[in-house]
């Protein structure tokens, strides 16, 4: 599964994208965020406050209970600030 990071999530974690092999117990977005925190101290710090970690699956905004499928493109980012 491909995971993309934007804005300060990208700069804190230090990569713009990574490909991960999800363990079978990770079934939804909330589970993915928890599991990503275990990958490194930088991940843990960047993802510590889930209130400011928004998620899109296949380029659509989704809530944390959104289910994941193996081919999904998942993006994690702070609340948007365009316009």
């Amino acid at each position, binding site marked *: 599964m491909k995971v993309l990071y*934007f804005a*300060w999530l990208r700069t804190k974690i230090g990569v713009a994208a990574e490909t991960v092999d999800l363990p079978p117990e990770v079934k939804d977005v909330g589970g993915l965020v928890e599991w990503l925190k275990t990958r490194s101290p930088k991940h843990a710090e960047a993802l510590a406050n889930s209130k400011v970690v928004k998620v899109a699956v296949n*380029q659509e*905004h989704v809530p944390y209970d959104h289910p994941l499928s193996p081919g999904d493109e998942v993006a994690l980012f*702070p*609340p*948007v*600030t*365009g*316009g």
Partner: protein
Amino acid sequence: MTVKVQREDFDVGAELAAMTRGKTSIGGVTLFVGLVRDMAGGESVSAMTLEHYPGMTEKQLEAIEAEARARWPLDDALIIHRYGRLEPGDQIVLVATASAHREAAFESCHFLIDWLKTKAPFWKLEATPEGERWVEAKDSDDAAAARWANQDGDQKG
């Protein structure tokens, strides 16, 4: 009905002319142009870099525009949003809506910029004397967008 996500600046007069040329059913066009301010949160800003999520940005802007067209009787709608490095005074975003009726033009334009601010995946990085900082989302933007959540288009005169 057009969405453009681009690094280049845009020409508001030319976009308006393209929107209205040869059309005689439009009673009014409302436009909003967002500009880079030199001050934000009490600090001076010397430049700004807009990051976005290519692909998702276009998809979200098109969805927001389709929502506006479903809610209001529009002859046309246009969103242009820039990304990359911008300086104070530079244009960031243009939203324009054309309708036979001015209330529809006003409300749909207002709706588009409010929704864009909470749904379009852009992030601003400001350069200040203290260094670079990512702009934080404002509660007032969420509140502005929430106004439109349970409201149908108002189609009066």
